[in-house]
């Protein structure tokens, strides 16, 4: 029996940050995941790749509780979240931040106010002036110019909106960051800048990053390990070199196709 008290977050937990076991997701008759297992270690940037429709976003939504899977178990920070109410999981949910594909900023609030929303929601007693200060430096921590804070999302470019989304995701100083295709729709310079930002933040703040991407450059540049989704499962997890040693046709095509070779040669040159 699960009690109604919120489950506590253990900062000194050393096991896998995310542990997914036997996950099954389906929409109607279409099965997206079947017996999917995945472990994410503390402090790594794990890239999740897969063809369109292999359920990368669905996997992320299952982990953060936006989608209830048919079967399986999802543990984050060693705590099982399935079947628990929002009130019970609040302490754990505070410890992660999510950047959605389009940024998902609240359009009626300025960038700084967007950052203040989670702080006000979870720590309503924090001094108002201090909350503003925190929001203002979070905006700049995510690489936005200082004058971007009082702007509305509609006044920002796509790349700036992504950075504003990161600022909001970082509002509560999370240990775990989910990024859904952060570099999609950015120009190569903006995308490279975003990769650097992700790496820097991960190192300074000691984050674990769960990164869904199609961007081969991002995979080569910043991911410690890559998980490949295909055939309704995670068919392989490892560094790109380890994956290349495998004999799976999709993995070979993905990393050894013309674009894959280009990205890897770019890395060697750098």
């Amino acid at each position, binding site marked *: 029996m699960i009690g109604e008290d919120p489950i506590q977050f253990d900062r000194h937990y050393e096991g896998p940050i995310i542990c997914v076991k036997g996950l099954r997701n389906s929409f109607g008759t279409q099965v997206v995941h079947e017996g999917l297992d995945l472990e994410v270690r503390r402090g790594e940037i794990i890239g999740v790749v897969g063809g369109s429709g292999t359920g990368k976003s669905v996997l992320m939504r299952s982990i953060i509780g936006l989608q209830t899977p048919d079967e399986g178990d999802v543990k984050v920070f060693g705590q099982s979240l399935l079947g628990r109410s929002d009130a019970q999981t609040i302490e754990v949910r505070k410890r992660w931040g999510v950047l959605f594909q389009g940024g998902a900023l609240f*359009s009626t609030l*300025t960038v700084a106010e967007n950052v203040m929303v989670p702080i006000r929601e979870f720590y309503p*007693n*924090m001094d108002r002036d*201090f909350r503003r*200060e925190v929001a203002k430096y979070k905006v700049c921590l995510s690489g936005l110019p200082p004058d*971007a*804070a009082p702007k509305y999302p*509609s006044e920002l470019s796509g790349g700036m909106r992504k950075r504003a989304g990161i600022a909001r995701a970082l509002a509560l100083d999370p240990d775990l960051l989910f990024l859904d295709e952060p570099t999609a729709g950015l120009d190569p310079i903006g995308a490279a800048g975003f990769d650097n930002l992700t790496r820097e933040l991960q190192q300074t*703040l000691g984050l674990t990053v769960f990164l869904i991407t199609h961007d081969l450059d991002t995979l080569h540049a910043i991911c410690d390990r890559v998980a490949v989704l295909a055939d309704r499962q995670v068919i392989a997890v490892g560094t790109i070199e380890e994956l290349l040693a495998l004999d799976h046709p999709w993995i070979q095509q993905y990393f050894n196709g013309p674009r894959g070779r280009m990205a890897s040669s770019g890395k060697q040159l750098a």
Partner: protein
Amino acid sequence: MTIAADFSEETSEDGAITLRFSGDLSIAAIGDLPERLRDSCGEAQWLDLSEVGYMDTVGAWLIYRTASNWNAEIQGGDDEANRLIHAIGNVAPASDVRPDPPNPIIRILTDVGEATTIAFTTLTGLVGFFGAIMLAAFRLMLHPGRIRWNAVIQRFDVVGVRALGIIGLMSFLIGLVIAQQGAVQLRQFGAEVFTVNLVGRLTMRELGVLMTAIMVAGRSGSAFAAQIGTMKLTEEIDAMRTIGVSPVEALVLPRFIAAVLMMPLLGFFASVVAIIGGGLLSWVELDIPPATFFSRIREVVPLTDVYVGLVKAPVFGAIIAVTGCYQGMQVKGNAEDVGKRTTAAVVQAIFLVIVLDAFFAVFFTWIGWN
């Protein structure tokens, strides 16, 4: 578990003040520390972190800001804390969380000015758009093969047939209410029998078509704006243009034709149902049998009343279609704009319908159709 953040003051022999922090300096543990720090002694020379447990960027920011405000030195932090404080020090904080509010007088003047220009541009835009529809209609008349009959007939179904239920119910209730209220008032003169005139003439001439127009504006005008607006957002309209399909021909004209042709039918239907409602109430309340009621209706409602309704209805239909499609085509930017434009379409359609109805009333009296 988190330990609440706290600090204590120590003054050394040479007068230097040290603030010794303890507990966790994290967002969860920081509590009212920023306020207490502000209200504290003031200038300290040393900030001691040796007893601090866990620190995150919120704590690091507090320490960094306090240190730079007071010109204090930080000591005793572990490597991780120093790295965080260093990283925080490297970003220049933003200026403000909201744009500066403008001067209230200037704001009011700007609002009034903007509203006026929007009113004028909308009006000219509507007229221009109506012209574009007429041009497209004229072009199609030269090439009748290009008329999209499938789309037109589908709109007939959506705008006309599917509205029958709700418009019938609404009109029936309106007929009931007019007859009931009329009977109460007319009874004071012993003139209940004129309830028939009231119901027959009022619904045929005015209310049947007017209420139908309001219902169609809410039902179909809003749908036109939302459908076309969404297509605008997803760049479907631009795609159409590049392929060489005119959006006015493909999207606007079918809706326009449907609204113009369906409105008279719906309006007439509404009037008849309202009369049936009034007849039912007269039967129950005033003991006028249906046969008498309907023969009286035929005597007291002149045919010109039916014409009045039938002349107004297509004009109202045109207004609804033009405002709906025009506002839909004006959508740009984001999904929020679709909502705004849909509201504008309905409000403008109903407003213009009522304004035109007033003109029609004067006009028909003038030509002697009273």
